[in-house]
Structures are given as structure tokens and as C-alpha cells.
């Protein structure tokens, strides 16, 4: 009965490399949520023109975070957790940093892939 109630694990998490956005799609100091490995991820273009890609799942209780243009930080509205643009937890209840992904710009596309060590 217990084994019946626990669903089988899905091992297919999708591709390790996805096109998260196109060049010019994001304004500086903004972010975009995109699906990655079956979960939401966040692509950020900072005010100084640098891309960052992070898991968008808050390490506190699993809400989906967003980029706050006012704070220049990643913010979780559920319990007011805050992260820097490279994923470090800086204030509020989040216990761990957000997982960071690598970003590669090729032609007109912005690719996000799992970092080699993740």
C-alpha cells in the first residue's frame, strides 16, 4: 500500500542545455523565468550588462523567486528572502544559496546549462 502511494521517480529532467532567451529580449536590470530541467529558473541581465542564471526555487520553502529591479537583488515574495544576483542568500529565512547555472551567448541565443560541478 505504502509503495503504491509513492509515485515512481522521473529520471528524465529534460535537456542540460536550453535557450533561455534571445539577445535583446531582456532589458538591463531585469529578469525572466524560464523552465529548466522541469523546474523554474531565472535569467538576469544586470544593469552593467552581465547575464546570470539561477534556480528560481527558493531554498527556504520552495516558492518561485523573482528579480527585483528596485533592490537589484533576487527576492522571494513568500517570506521576504533575498539573494544576490549570483545566488548567495543575503537576508531573510533562506538557508542556502540558489543553484547557479552557466550562461553562454551564441549568436542571437542565450543558452543556459548546468554548471560542470552541479
Amino acid at each position: 500500500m505504502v509503495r503504491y502511494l509513492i509515485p515512481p521517480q522521473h529520471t528524465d529532467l529534460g535537456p542540460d542545455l536550453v535557450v533561455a532567451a534571445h539577445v535583446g529580449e531582456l532589458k538591463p536590470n531585469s529578469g525572466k523565468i524560464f523552465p529548466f530541467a522541469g523546474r523554474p529558473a531565472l535569467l538576469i541581465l544586470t544593469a552593467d550588462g552581465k547575464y546570470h542564471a539561477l534556480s528560481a526555487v527558493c531554498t527556504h520553502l520552495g516558492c518561485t523567486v523573482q528579480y527585483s529591479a528596485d533592490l537589484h537583488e533576487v527576492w522571494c515574495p513568500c517570506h521576504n528572502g533575498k539573494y544576490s544576483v549570483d545566488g548567495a542568500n543575503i537576508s531573510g529565512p533562506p538557508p542556502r544559496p540558489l543553484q547557479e547555472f552557466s550562461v553562454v551567448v551564441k549568436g542571437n541565443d542565450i543558452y543556459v546549462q548546468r554548471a560542470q560541478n552541479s
Partner: protein
Amino acid sequence: MGASANLRNWLDERFGWDELMKFVRHKTVPIHRFSYFYFLGGMTLFLFGIQVCTGILLLMYYRPTPNGAFESVQYIMTRVPFGWLIRSIHSWGANVMILTAIAHMFSVFFLKSYRKPRELTWLSGMVLLFLVLGFGFSGYLLPWNMLSLFATKVGTNMTDQVPLIGHWMLVFLRGGEDVTGATLTRFFGIHVAILPGLATMFIGLHLLLVQRFGMSVPPSVEAETKAHPEKARELRFFPNFFLRELMAWYVVLAALGCLAAFKPWELGKKADLFASAPAGIRPEWYFMFMFQTLRFLPAKVGPFAGDLLGVLLFGVAAAVWTCLPFFDNSKDGRGKRWITGVGVFALAYFVGMTLYAYLV
């Protein structure tokens, strides 16, 4: 012999009808300055009945799938005749039922109605309160909107903090690692089959225990009637108390009708699994004190992770609260003062944190 007498004989031969009527005629309810609190349990039961009826009506159109849930509730509210009313009564009714259940619990607590021999009545009542909260939590996801999606993400994620079995509980509740369509289907099953079955069982047990031990009289009133037995007053349950209870139900029904008509329950935006949580997101009022506490807790409290500590504290507090009757066994039957202090603290914490979350 008339038809009614024949029917009565028929019932009496099979079910002991006359015995039952004799019992009903002799059942009484004590009357004192706190008697109004006796209505709260009946009101909660009445609201449960309303939830069952409106829930069955909603089932005629509701579809528990990620592509159909939101649309089917939208269809109920915009196209089905009186659908908006049925859905609004169901949503408001859930909130009012939780309110009366919590008020019933605190009234039983402060009137010390859980004292010997009514410990099991309290325990069965606490199980019912947890079931009612389970109804609220599982039903909240069913419209499949943004608020319900994130409330479910946070609520189920809290179980992951429980040591040893936490992750198993999370996967069991979600039907997988994440909140998805599988969670919706699972919550639907829990909401319309598992919880109603359990609730029916425990309501039966609770009523049986209330019947067996009768209505409790608060210690202060008990002391007064011991000193002045001539002051003890009672009311016949049927029809006197029953008609008064019926009036209370009527008031509840009128209040629900007003709420549903003048402030129909909103549907919000359809859930998007890949959208960020909307700003200002918060759970229903009855979980607000937990939500606010978790906001206050930092990432680390001493050697503990803040969220783990929060979940453990709430778990321990709920267990201690449920077992309080077994600590309150004073010889004079008046109950221990520190237990009342715990109750005052619990009520102040619940109300204070809820108000803080809404007002600050």
C-alpha cells in the same frame, strides 16, 4: 389505529422508537452564564453539512486536472445558474467553519470542558480540527490559481523539514517531487474521499462521547451550584435547546448568504508552474500565524536551520496542546492555573501574529 400510530408501532418493534423518544425527552442542557458557547459545536456541524451539500453540487462540474480545474471553476462561476453562489458559499463556508471550530476549541479549553471524564471528547475534537484544517488546505488548491499553487508549494515543503519521514511525506502529498497536476489529482482525492470519510467517523465518535458524558459545566458554575443547589437550571434538549440551536444555524446561514452575495469569492489568475510568486502572497487567515512566524525566523537559529526549528516548534506545540487534558488533573477539579496561562498565550499568539501579518 391511525397511520402515524401504525408507523410508530412499526418503528418501535424494529428500532425501539419509544425508548429513543424517552431518552430524547429526558435529555437536558445545563443553563448558566456561559451556555451560549454550547452553540459553537452545533454551528460547526451545520457548516460541515453545508460544505458537504455545496461540495457535492460543485462535483457535478469540477474537473481535477491542470488543464480543466481553473476553467471548470470559471465555468461554474460564470455559466452555471447559481454556480457563483454555490461556489462562494462553499469557499466562505469553509472559512466560517474553521472559525467556529477554532472558537469551539478555545471555548472548550477556557471552560475546562476537557476535564475528566471528557479527555477523549477533547482528543476526538482535536482530530476533527486537524481534519477541518486539512479540508481547508486541500480544497484551497482545487481552483488551481496562482495563490493556491504557492500556498501548496510552501505548505507541502514544510513537511520536508520533518526529520526522517519528511521527504516521504512531501512526495506522498505532492504525488512527486514538485507541485504539479499530480498534486492536484491527489489533493482532490484527499479532499472529496479520504477526509470526508475520516471526518464522518470522528464526528460520529465525538457526538457519541458528548452524548455519553453530557454537556460539561465550567468549574466556577459547578462550585456555585454546589453551594446553592437551588440555583442549578436546566433546559430540555428537545425542543427547547434544539430550537435555539436552529436559530443559531439560521443566523449562520444568513451570514453566509450575505458574504456570498455581497463579496463573491474571487478566482484569481490560473496557476502557472513557471511563473514567479506574486508579490503580497499569503495563505488563508488560519495559517497566517505560522506564515508570519516563518517570516520572522532567520536562516539559522543557533545550531538549527530556521525553517526546521519553526516546523518542529509548531509540531511540538500542536502535540502538547492536544494532550493538555492529561496534564490538567487537579484534585479540586478547577484545573491548573498554568494551563489557563498556556491557553491565554496560545490565543494571544494566534491573534497577535495574524493581525501583525495583515496590518504591518
